[in-house]
């Protein structure tokens, strides 16, 4: 359902401008044998002007890739150097060629080790700062920064909301706190990555030579739709083959919760086994330039993804309010026995809850993946998801939505005062405070939960 909405909205984009851009970057596999593809390491050197706050490019800076050669940045600060084959490379920025008064934010990260993967160019980042490196961490409170952080918080909150609603739906109908929800997020992200690079069947090595779309990768938009479908499918499989049996055998909820934890480790390490530890990015839209909207800078992909997540969230809300299945979900959530006695097939509702909850988590993973694809991403945001769900009241979908937005905004705005490195700690603080003073959540009803 969500997948269909995604597809419908992005179809024009797929066959429009993006298709031609992709054609230039990645010549189809038939034209060049594997290994001779034009792989390159690229990036852009820019820094904030301390007085105006504008982005300024750093031209004529020498970048060396060990064993390959050197390149100078163009007027817009961009550089691109072709590398012969996938593998590990060391990239060095010649610090003395930087413009006057400009330094690396993190001098320890130069030289930088990077890995170029088969079939994708590798972006390297050398964050720059005008003035001393230490200054950038202090950060001041300005309207511009506030607006930018609020925008990023809104973005994170919207993406979080999808994962949180999935978790809260499953909790509401089955009473199970699903710790593997984090891995459902990662699953959406990774399966999208694999569809994006290997097509529908290419991840199985021997099927890779098939013509696209079966082998060789599909456009990210289609891959994202497939990723969300794969998410729903995994949700179905988990419920059908693991948790339905456990419920029938009368396994207690606590034991089921330990099962989800086992499942979470199992999936996570299967992911790292297959995907390896290094972060990667999707093949399309990975190097977009930010668009200025008043004081805010966001990339086009962010804007599209945020709009899409709003559409999906509205879709979920109308699904819960208007369709028979949505109403049944809420009924089972409110009172399982009562719902059952009015003729609702509870097991069928639970199946749909698992499918849609997992698909929502996968969608969240796809959107988060626009920034970075990593094997333990879901686990990294698990704390935020839990904080959102608890804030809104366990088992309440709208509560989870509000909770996610509050968490996203709060932790991002908190970086006005504290280091970004520890912003997730603020989520724990929210969690502890809400449990102390309003354990039923901001939208929950007053009732004894102890």
């Amino acid at each position, binding site marked *: 359902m969500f997948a269909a909405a995604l597809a419908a909205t992005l179809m024009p984009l797929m066959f429009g401008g993006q298709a031609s851009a992709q054609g230039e970057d990645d010549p189809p596999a038939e034209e060049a044998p594997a290994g001779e593809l034009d792989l390159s390491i690229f990036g852009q050197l820019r820094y904030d002007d301390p007085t105006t706050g504008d982005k300024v490019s750093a031209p004529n800076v020498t970048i060396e890739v060990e064993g390959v050669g050197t390149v100078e940045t163009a007027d817009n600060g961009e550089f691109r150097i072709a590398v012969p084959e996938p593998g590990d490379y060391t990239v060095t920025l010649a610090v003395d060629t930087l413009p006057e008064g400009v330094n690396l934010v993190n001098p320890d990260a130069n030289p930088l080790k990077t890995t170029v993967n088969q079939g994708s160019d590798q972006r390297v980042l050398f964050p720059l700062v005008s003035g001393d490196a230490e200054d950038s961490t202090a950060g001041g409170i300005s309207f511009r920064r506030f607006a930018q952080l609020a925008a990023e918080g809104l973005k994170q909150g919207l993406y979080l909301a999808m994962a949180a609603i999935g978790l809260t739906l499953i909790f509401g109908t089955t009473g199970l706190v699903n710790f593997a929800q984090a891995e459902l997020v990662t699953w959406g992200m990774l399966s999208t990555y694999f569809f994006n690079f290997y097509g529908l069947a290419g991840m199985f090595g021997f099927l890779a030579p098939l013509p696209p779309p079966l082998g060789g990768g599909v456009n990210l938009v289609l891959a994202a739709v497939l990723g969300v479908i794969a998410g729903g499918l995994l949700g179905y499989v988990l419920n059908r083959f693991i948790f339905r049996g456990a419920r029938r055998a009368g396994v207690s909820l606590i034991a089921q919760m330990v*099962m989800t934890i086992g499942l979470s480790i199992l999936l996570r390490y299967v992911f790292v086994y297959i995907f390896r530890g290094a972060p990667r990015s999707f093949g399309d839209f990975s190097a977009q330039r930010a668009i200025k909207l008043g004081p805010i800078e966001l990339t086009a992909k962010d804007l599209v993804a945020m709009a899409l997540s709003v559409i999906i969230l509205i879709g979920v809300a109308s699904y819960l309010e208007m369709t028979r299945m949505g109403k049944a979900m809420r009924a089972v959530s409110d009172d399982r026995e009562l719902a059952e006695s009015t003729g609702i097939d509870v097991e069928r509702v639970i199946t749909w809850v698992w499918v849609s909850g997992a698909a929502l988590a996968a969608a969240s993973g796809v959107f988060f993946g626009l920034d970075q694809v990593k094997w333990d991403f879901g686990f990294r945001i698990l704390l935020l998801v839990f904080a959102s769900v608890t804030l809104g009241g366990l088992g309440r979908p709208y509560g989870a939505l509000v909770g996610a937005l509050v968490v996203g905004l709060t932790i991002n705005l908190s970086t006005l005062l504290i280091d970004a490195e520890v912003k997730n700690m603020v989520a724990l603080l929210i969690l502890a405070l809400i449990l102390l003073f309003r354990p039923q959540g901001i939208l929950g009803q007053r009732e004894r939960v102890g």
Partner: protein
Amino acid sequence: MDWGFILERTFSTMFGVEVMVFALAAVGLNVQFGYGGLLNFGQVGFMAMGAYGLGVSINYFQLNFLAGVAFGIVFSIVLALILGVPTLRLRADYLAIVTIAASETIRLFVRWRRMKEITGASEGIGEFTDPFYESGLNPFTVGQRYDFGPFSYVGRDLWVLMVGWTILIITVLLVKRLMSSPWGRALKAIREDEDAARALGKNAYAYKLQALMLGGVIGGIAGMLQVIQKGSIQPDTFNPVITFTIWAILILGGPGRTWSPIIGSIIYWSLVSFLENVLRGLPEGPAGTLEDTIGLSDFNVSQVRFILVGFGLLLLARFRPQGIFGSREEMALDDR
């Protein structure tokens, strides 16, 4: 394939440092979960508190070793209070959520750049163990290797093992004694039926908080022993997978039973060590086949372990929540 070597390594693992540390941490979890029914999914956080309490007070505050140990214990108690006070009045799963979140937060906090001076940030703390190894009580030569039949340890580890196993056995016996005392029986009653226990006038909240603190302190001591053996404190070794391994060990042995943490830990680490050594010791032919088909190499052999931990935990919780040797009566995996 060198079976002699593989068996020697497996045997040495059976009473090695990992078994001892994880068994002790599991004793702590056993107090909390096995006897108290508390879902603490942040045991690694208590281990980190113990370890950093020790390391920071020696390395940063220049205190002596015993004061460091005392601080490690105090830190663990403080963590238990922070986690327990808001959550223990609520339904059981809230504690699970908060503890799992807190243990990750502790890791983020100690590796925070600004904590560099105190906790050493991502580089951690080193050089705080000398008083332990140079203690006059140490009967072993630190650098020498000692063999006892199939068991073989370095003198340094042997000293840690001696201290560690002594603490472990004493702790297990103390916990056994405690659980047959009125306090322990009240705790078990609360696990079985909180409302009934409250109706009998027991302050369930206080009992649960005390159990969380006691288990946390035992976890903290396990954390100290671990970093003493390693000789350094690395923030990233305190990751949530440790907690889940401890859970797997406890459920393997059977929650709520006296010796289950030790039995579970021995079974778990022997299996892991045997499997890893076999996989790493494979001759060229089969090793090559495995690498070609499923991409198994020296590099990711250790990930297989965690895949198996996850799978084992899933199966145990589903089919034998009382553990391999546990009894249905003591089974604590129950609704609350």
